[in-house]
Each structure stands twice: as C-alpha cells, then as structure tokens.
C-alpha cells in the first residue's frame, strides 16, 4: 500500500523521481564501496598514482590509497555532515521563522531584521574566519558552524508560511479551546507545513555539503575523517591536476555536484507534488 502511494506521488513529478534516483544511486555507491572494502579508507594498499583498473575501480592516489574506498567513505561522511548541519539550520530557521510569523508586531520586525542581516553576509568567508579559530576541527563542530550561519533562508520560508496559516479558521478554534501559543505552533502550524520543512531541509543539506567542501578546500575541513572535500583538497595539494590524474579530481567533485543537484530536484519535485497549483509544463 505504501509502495503504491509512493508511486502515485512520484508519478506527479518527474523532477522528484530523477532527484530521488540520483540520490539513491550515490548512497548505493557509498554502501557498495564500504561493504566491499577490505581496509580503511586511509590505508596504503597499492602502488601510488595508479589509473582506474578492474582491481582498483577509481585508481589510487599519491599515498597508494584505493580511491574507490576513499570516495565511498567520503560520501558517507559528507552526507552525515550535510544531515547534521541541515538539521541544525532547519531547527533554528523554524524557531525564528515560526516565532516571527506567529507573534507578528515588534517581535516579527526584530527577528526579520536579524534574518535579513545574516542573509546579506558572505557565508563562506564568515565560515572561514570562524573555522580558522576552531582548535578541534571534527565533524560536529563544523556542522554546528555551518548550521548557525545558514538558517536565514529557512526562517524566511517558514515565516511566510506561518503568516498565511495563522489566519485560518482552525487556528481560531484551537485558540478558543485554550491552547497556548507554543501548543498552537507545535500542534497546528508546524504539522501543516511539514512538506515545506522537508523541502527546506533538502536545500539546507545540499548547501551544507557544498559549504563543508569549500571549507575543506581552504584547509579547514575535519582533521579526523575523509570527506569528499578533503579528497579534493589532497588532490589539489599533491598536484593531481598538473600530473593529469583526472581519476583523483573528477569523481569527488562530480558526486558533490550531483548530490546537491539531486537534493535541489527533490526540493522542486516536492513543491510540485504538494503545491499542484505551481505545477507547469
């Protein structure tokens, strides 16, 4: 039954279907790589700088690591940072957006001003400055930093939705029955915009994966795990470009791009499914 419901949702939007297919293929890639790995991602297992072959599907890097295994673990870690940072950003965005939209008046003006201020600031340079002060750079601190910089887009969307929802009749009914503001937001407002929250999360997750890779490229990535951004950083430092080692550069960057594209397509697709009025062409 769930399967048929799922199919009917997916059939409404080609974008959603394509987005989900790309996203699931990337996860499958990662799972297959991790399950078949006979060693850790950072272990030296073969000669250095080998091009792709049937034994080493994506070749080896300048440390003799198997890039197929490295990329597989990199996907997992990048996605994890994306999920954590995305959850933090979505959470802050909901709290600020829902409060602003629901309370209105001076609270709304102050929160909205704050949101617009953060929105104008150049996010990646800000992350670089803050990241450079981090003494311990693990995935949790990085996710936290990315999350607390990137919430404004979500806050804006949630604010607009809350604004339009709070004037509906059923909210008045709940209010008359004595629900507090917090209960109204938690029980009436948020469940009614679940599709927007999921959409916002998909966008935040994609953005966070790009941010992490940007930080890693500058040399501020996590020091204890391999991410897609870290693989690109090593490729850059060991001059993979100059030495023509395309197999060290193309896969990690392509997967970052495709992950972000797939999450964006899922966002667009969900919009088409849940807001059929918008669907065109």
């Amino acid at each position, binding site marked *: 039954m769930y399967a048929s419901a799922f199919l009917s949702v997916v059939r409404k939007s*080609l974008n959603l279907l394509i987005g989900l297919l790309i996203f699931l293929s990337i996860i499958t890639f990662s799972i297959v790589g991790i399950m078949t790995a006979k060693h850790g991602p950072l272990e030296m297992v073969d000669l250095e700088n080998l091009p792709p072959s049937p034994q080493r599907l994506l070749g080896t890097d300048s440390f003799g690591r198997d890039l197929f295994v490295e990329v597989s673990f990199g996907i997992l870690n990048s996605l994890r940072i994306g999920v954590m940072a995305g959850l933090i950003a979505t959470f802050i965005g909901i709290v600020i957006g829902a409060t602003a939209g629901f309370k209105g008046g001076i609270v709304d003006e102050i929160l909205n*001003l*704050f949101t*617009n*201020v*953060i*929105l*104008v*600031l*150049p*996010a*990646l*340079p*800000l992350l*670089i*400055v*803050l990241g*450079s*002060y*981090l*003494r*311990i750079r693990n995935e949790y*601190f990085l996710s936290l930093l990315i999350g607390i910089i990137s919430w404004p887009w979500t806050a804006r969307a949630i604010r607009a939705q809350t604004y339009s929802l709070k004037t509906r009749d059923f909210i008045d009914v709940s209010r008359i029955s004595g629900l507090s503001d917090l209960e109204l937001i938690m029980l009436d407002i948020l469940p009614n915009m679940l599709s927007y929250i999921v959409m916002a999360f998909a966008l935040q997750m*994609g953005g966070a994966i*790009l941010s992490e*890779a*940007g930080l890693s*490229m*500058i*040399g*501020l990535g996590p020091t204890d795990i391999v991410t897609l951004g870290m693989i*690109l950083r090593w*490729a*850059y430092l060991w001059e993979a*470009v*100059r030495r*023509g080692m*395309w197999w060290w*550069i*193309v896969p*990690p*960057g392509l997967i*970052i*791009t495709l992950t*972000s*594209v797939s999450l*964006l*397509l899922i966002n667009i697709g969900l919009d088409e499914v849940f807001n059929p009025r918008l669907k*065109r*062409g």
Partner: protein
Amino acid sequence: MRKKFTSPIYIFLLRKVGFYVLCFFVATFLIWAIPRLMPGDPIRMFVSQIYSSIGSGGPVPEKTKLLYEYYVKKFNLDKPYYIQYFTYLQSIITFDFSTSIAFYPAKVIDLVKMALPWSLALLIPAEIVGWIIGNYLGALAAYSRREKINNVALYAFLFISQTPYYWLALMLAYIFAFQFHIFPFGGGYSWGVTPSLTLSFILDVVWHYVLPFLSLVLVIIGGQAIGMREMVIYELGSEYMYYGKSLGVKDSKLTKWAFRNAILPQVTGLALSIGSAVGGQVVTEAVFGYPGIGTLIYTGVLREDYPLIQGGFTILLITTLIANFVIDILYVYIDPRIRRAYLGE
C-alpha cells in the same frame, strides 16, 4: 520635485545605510564573539606551541606562567569583555589590523590594499557578465515552446549552478592548462615579470585572468538562469498575458512584457548572488594562486595569521555591503513603481 531631506528618497537611503551599518556590526561582532564561546584556551595553546617549537625539553612552570601572563595582558584578556570588544572595534574601524605574521614585517592593511584591485577586477566583471548571460539564457529557455529544450536547459542550469567553484576551477585547469596548454595555471601574471603598464604585461595578465574568470562566471550564469527561467514562466502564465493574447497583441510584444516584468526581481537576485560569489571567489583565487584577497585569506589560514584573516574578511565584508547598497539604489531607478513613489516623477 521636493528636495527637502524629508523626501522619501532620503529616508529610503538613510534606512538602507542604517541597515548595512548594522550588518557590519553584527558580522564583526560574530567573529569577535563566537571564537570566545568556543572551548579551549587559545593563549595556553599559543604558549605551549612556542615551547614545542623551541624544543626546550618540556615547559618550565615559572617561565610558562610569565609568558602566559604576558600574552593575557598583551591581548587585553584580563580586562572586562566590553573593554575587549571596544578595543577590537576600534582596530577594525580604523583599519588597524597590525602586522601580518605570514608576510612579516608587512602591514596587513598594505597587503589588503595591493590585493583588493585584483579581487574587484575579478568579481565585478564576473557578476555583471554572468548576470546578463544568465538572464538571457534563462529567458530563452522559458520562451522555448518545445518542452524538451526547456527541461534539458533546466537540468543544465541546475548542474552548473551546483558545481563547486573550486572543482570547476580544477577541471578547467586540467582541461585548458594541462591537456591543451591554452591558458596558464597559477598566479595573476607570469613568474619573474615585474608589473608595469606595458602591452605585453597587460596581455599576460589577461591570459592568466581567463580561467579564474570562467570558473566564477559559469556558476553565476547557472544560478541566474534558473531564477530568470522561473520568473518568465510565471509571467507567461499570468492573467495579463492571456488578456493581451485575447486582444491579439503580437507575440514579440508579449515576450517583451514578460521579460520586463521578470527582470526586476532578478536585480534582487543579483544582490543575493553577491554573497555566494564572494565566497566562491575566495576559493577560486586560492586554487589559482590569483593575487587577490582570497589568496591572502588562504595564506592566513595556512600560516595561522589571524590579523591577515581578519583584515581580508573585513574588506570582503565591506565590498559585499557596498555592492548590495549600489544595487538597492539601482533598483529605485529601474523599477518605475518605486521610482515614482520615491522621486515623485
């Protein structure tokens, strides 16, 4: 026309200036406060780093304590927080970022002054060219009657807009610098050449400029094209279009209407894309070793040169805020509704 200071345009400008000044204070406050909230004692780290680099066989307790106290005093960490903050604010506002560690004994402000023209020469043309081409392609895709072209265009725009700037930089370098040897990789001009106003030097600079420029502009084109395609499709489906069509207005005129209405929000799109383009510029410059602010910040990160990082960031911040302000003013002149309201034409 009223020319009093109470006229709407002055109030508008004043509000905008106030907003960007507020942005400046929030950003500088964040980079002051967040490191202080983080775990770890930076001075203790610093002192133990000094000892480990001397290699004196373990720290001597009394001397460590002396050194520790010296640095606590030097950075004002023994003073209350508000005094620390005002000292910091004073140094930022007066552009007194002290001396760079990585380029000792050069002053940070002098390094930034040298790098800024290079960065602006990359950012401003990339934003403008990217915006124009992106909007043109986006509108073209939206006008296309064939659904296939429209959809394929959307996927192409999506892909290019989500490409990380630095990966695109690496790919362009791989293809054009090392496979086909058309453009050079690294720096703003050739090694061993002294900057001068000669034709050969300018050609050399342009030749080095192409790849960093392309890696910025392509991503901007993708992002702008997505926005424009959305807007034009929305306009084409709106009521006045059907009305115009039913009156028998020519197609070319209808597309012109749609374009004019769709381009307005795209001016706001230009403002919003600046923040991300500035970020992309930092990494792109770092990858190419282009002599701009981004490369300075990258060097600062590698050498833990905090004055350099802060100086570079502050300049990028001011650039972003000024660019946003300029676009706000442009918008007043472009949008006839706002123009009439504010300038009373």
